[in-house]
């Protein structure tokens, strides 16, 4: 099956099959190829549509988001009916309707240092269409460790960048990667994303299509891959330029995956005596707007029953026995009567159990009673 085409496929791919330098050998390479698309957003949409249409045999899609109304201005993979659905679910429905010959591997999760190598392993090409620096460095490093070419693209307002990193050329030499171009990430305050900085919808289509084109070239060996060159397009002036860049010397040795959020300055490590604070007003707003946070009352059961604001009861002296009750992936607010015991609990949890998502309710239940109202 993998070495030939049905009559239906021959017709479907006929415009490729008659293409010089492509033909049946190129189409067979596409059919046998496994490509992982990281992020099914602005870039992921054209990437997935064109790679599916082109007949890439196996497509992995990793994305943990749901389709939102503000996505539809550029993420042409989705329609009105997709709103609220997980992106990977909406994507696979649309893509299967486009080409039923493709095998889809779906990952509805966030790519992390813990799962990246396991997920990327076995793919021939990775296409990075994520929207943040931690994931870009993660994808880069994982591809370097696994020896997988990384077809990269990135967009900002009216501008885009495209490059192929870590590409092993016909001479057997590995090309430069993202860290050769940008060894370290910019600080978070210098990084507006699409939500803050805006993005021209059609730019995602242009740049994501260029990215798809490079994926196809890497697989089929057609033409000259964009390795060691960064393509920049500015749609305002409609100018492109291609900047040649070498491997850095000395190089950046990548030995293992690291904490990329920390690397990008997203969650600065706290000093051993530092506790993040949240005011009762802020907490009240979070609760009213239905934010997914965990509230923990570290007072005694007796105090909890007299007056509480809906937190889970885990008394201070019992907290180390109930570590698994405390979430590590959402905001957790701890409180007591005035904030002393909760501070003690947070310091212990941070220093001994490496929690980074804990907040102290400043002034505790007393502040709540004074500023918000009598607790229930």
């Amino acid at each position, binding site marked *: 099956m993998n070495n030939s085409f049905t009559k239906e496929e021959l017709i479907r791919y006929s415009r490729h099959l008659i293409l010089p330098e492509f033909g049946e050998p190129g189409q067979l390479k596409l059919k046998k190829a496994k490509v992982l698309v990281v992020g099914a957003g*602005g870039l992921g949409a054209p990437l997935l549509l064109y790679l599916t249409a082109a007949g890439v045999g196996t497509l992995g899609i990793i994305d943990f988001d749901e389709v939102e109304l503000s996505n539809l201005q550029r993420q042409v993979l989705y329609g009105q009916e997709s709103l609220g659905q997980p992106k990977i679910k909406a994507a696979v429905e649309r893509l299967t309707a486009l080409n039923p010959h493709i095998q889809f591997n779906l990952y509805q999760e966030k790519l992390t240092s813990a799962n990246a190598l396991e997920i990327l392993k076995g793919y021939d090409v990775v296409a990075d*269409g994520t929207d943040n620096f931690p994931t870009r460095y993660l994808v880069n490093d994982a591809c370097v460790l696994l020896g997988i070419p990384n077809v990269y693209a990135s967009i900002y307002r009216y501008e885009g960048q495209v490059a192929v990193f870590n590409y092993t050329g016909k001479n057997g030499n590995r090309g430069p990667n993202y860290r050769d171009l940008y060894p370290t990430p910019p600080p978070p305050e210098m990084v507006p994303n699409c939500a803050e900085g805006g993005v021209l919808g059609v730019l995602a289509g242009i740049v994501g299509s260029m990215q798809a084109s490079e994926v196809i070239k890497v697989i089929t060996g057609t033409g000259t891959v964009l390795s060691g060159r960064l393509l920049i397009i500015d749609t305002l002036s409609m100018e492109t330029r291609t900047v040649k860049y070498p491997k850095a010397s000395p190089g950046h040795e990548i030995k293992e995956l690291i904490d990329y959020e920390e690397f990008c300055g997203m969650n600065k490590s706290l000093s051993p005596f530092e506790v993040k604070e949240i005011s009762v007003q802020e907490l009240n707003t979070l609760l009213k707007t239905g934010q997914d946070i965990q509230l923990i009352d570290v007072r005694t059961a007796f105090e909890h029953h007299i007056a509480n604001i809906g937190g889970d009861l885990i008394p201070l002296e019992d907290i180390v026995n109930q570590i698994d009750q405390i979430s590590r992936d959402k905001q957790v607010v701890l409180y007591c009567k005035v904030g002393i015991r909760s501070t003690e609990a947070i310091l212990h949890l941070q220093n001994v159990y490496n929690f980074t998502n804990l907040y102290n309710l400043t002034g505790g239940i007393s502040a709540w009673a004074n500023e918000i109202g009598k607790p229930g």
Partner: protein
Amino acid sequence: MVTVKLFGIAKEIVGGSTLTLDSPVANVEELLHYLRERYPEFAKLTSLLIAVNDEYARPATVIHDTDEIAVIPPVSGG
């Protein structure tokens, strides 16, 4: 005078897509110094790609008046 093309957040820092330098710079290191002195926010951009005539430039790369210079910060949108 050398004219520099600006991309990404460099456009916002300078307030335009090109910048004509009002004093000469001999090399990329001096260009970076010039930018950081006049626009302190450049000091925060620790990774900044500078291209001279569409080639990756190192601090010691010499700049001539006729060279085409581009300042290309990293972008992450997708």
